[in-house]
């Protein structure tokens, strides 16, 4: 078995640095940046918000949907990019000038599908806003507006978390829109900003203990290859994030669902004792009672289960691994940071398993230069 030091890797460093990164990110996202991105008239033209993205960006959209709806007072839909690009009726885009606001999230802004989303939204009259780290990217050039994230550098070898960056940027954007629309006061906007920094700082203190817990769990779960993640609404983003990290790092066979559909479908997966299961269950969630019932099902099936929550361990059935995390002043902030538990677990599992992330060196993945993201044809329907 490898030692803890031998299992240090870039993902682990990135996750461990997430609280510091998030604090610095908030400093870099000045109020001026958000004041300049949309004029007051443009904000008042918006009747509906559509958020779309792929992978971590899509998850960040799901994570921030409650914040967007609460702070802006606007109906907000988070769409999978293929749904937005190819299946959403074009009549939904541009019913009136500048409406809806279509937020397209991509750190690089270079993939075929995000360029397509920007082109389609703009063509049919929506107010397309690209959130990206590269304002000169092909996607950004197709958007009417661009919001640059300004991801702070955190030292050599430590990358930035796009999920934390995009969700934080969207939270500040939502606060700005809500302020202009008179939903939240200037004082509340300041309080949201300060509370988010305090919340990120509260994670700084717990990271070593959290790392201990995930290291221990990774050693118990090292032989598991099947994983299942469950979370509802904004917590689905955290669950989805956990699943994605298990696939990306060591190529797990993975599923992700909400509590209700898990009870209908995922419940029946064979050999439950061999399925590593992640459940995100927060007590402020309107479906917390259903999550507790789901946890009971996982316990009765003897599934190896990690519960990520702000609640005390005593609330959940015995035998489940419970990771109790700090609680934000505003519920809608919790998904920005709760991903660190699953991130740390994945960062410890893949070196313990001896598997390279993203299938590096795996001959089965040598596809002669084919890349499903870049080579896809852009079509506007």
């Amino acid at each position: 078995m490898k030692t803890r030091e031998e299992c240090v890797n870039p993902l682990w460093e990135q996750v461990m640095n997430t609280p510091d990164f998030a604090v610095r990110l908030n400093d870099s996202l000045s109020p001026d940046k958000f004041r300049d991105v949309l004029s007051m008239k443009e904000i008042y033209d918006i009747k509906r918000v559509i958020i779309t993205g792929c992978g971590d960006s899509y998850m960040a959209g799901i994570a921030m949907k409650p914040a967007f709806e609460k702070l802006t007072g606007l109906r907000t839909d988070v769409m999978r990019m293929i749904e937005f690009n190819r299946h959403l009726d074009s009549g939904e885009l541009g019913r009136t000038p500048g409406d809806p606001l279509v937020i397209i999230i991509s750190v690089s802004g270079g993939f075929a599908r995000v360029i397509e989303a920007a082109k389609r939204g703009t063509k049919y009259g929506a107010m397309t806003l690209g959130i990206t780290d590269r304002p000169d990217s092909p996607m950004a050039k197709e958007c009417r507006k661009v919001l640059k994230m300004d991801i702070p550098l955190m030292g050599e070898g430590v990358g930035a978390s796009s999920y934390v960056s995009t969700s934080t940027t969207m939270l500040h954007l939502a606060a700005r829109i809500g302020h202009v629309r008179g939903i939240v006061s200037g004082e509340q906007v300041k309080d949201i900003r300060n509370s988010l920094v305090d919340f990120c700082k509260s994670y700084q203190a717990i990271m070593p203990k959290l790392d201990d817990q995930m290291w221990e769990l990774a050693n118990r779960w090292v032989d598991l290859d099947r994983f299942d993640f469950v979370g509802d609404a904004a917590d689905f983003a955290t669950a989805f994030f956990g699943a994605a990290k298990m696939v990306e790092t060591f190529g797990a066979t993975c599923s992700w669902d909400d509590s209700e559909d898990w009870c209908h479908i995922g419940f029946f997966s064979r050999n439950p004792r061999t399925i590593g299961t992640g459940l995100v269950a927060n007590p402020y969630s309107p479906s917390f009672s259903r999550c507790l019932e789901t946890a009971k099902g996982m316990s009765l099936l003897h599934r190896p289960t990690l519960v990520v929550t702000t609640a005390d361990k005593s609330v959940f059935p015995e035998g489940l691994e419970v990771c109790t995390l700090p609680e934000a002043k505003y519920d809608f902030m919790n998904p920005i940071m709760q991903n660190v538990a699953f991130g740390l677990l994945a960062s410890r599992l893949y070196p313990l398993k001896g598997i390279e992330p993203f299938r590096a060196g795996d001959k089965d993945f040598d596809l002669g230069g084919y890349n499903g993201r870049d080579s896809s044809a852009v079509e506007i329907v």
Partner: protein
Amino acid sequence: MLEKRTLRTKFYDMVNITGEIADIVKNSGVQDGICIVTCPHTTAALCVACEQDPNILEDIQGELNRMIPTRNDFKHQETPHDASGHIKSAIVGPILTLIVENGELMIAHNQQGIYFAEFDGPRPREYYVKVM
């Protein structure tokens, strides 16, 4: 003697600060002079208004809103409330000069009140009082 007072306003608030200013005047010991009240804000103002009917205070805010409605095409692009608040503040004014006679404010007691007018908010605010 310069006195500073703080308050927490509500959205589009009219806060009666007559009692506090009267106390400051009384404690100053000045018998005949002037009392200057000022607020260091640009989306709030000070005014003297009738304190007999709270509807009058609503009318003041309401009429100012009709004259200077919140629009989204102000050149100042903070928020519509903030932008209109700057104009209201400039019109109503952030300074009052009151006469002190026989150690008391010379206002119509039980009729006139001194008000801190909030044109944005809610916010922590402050004002200063100088009696001489």
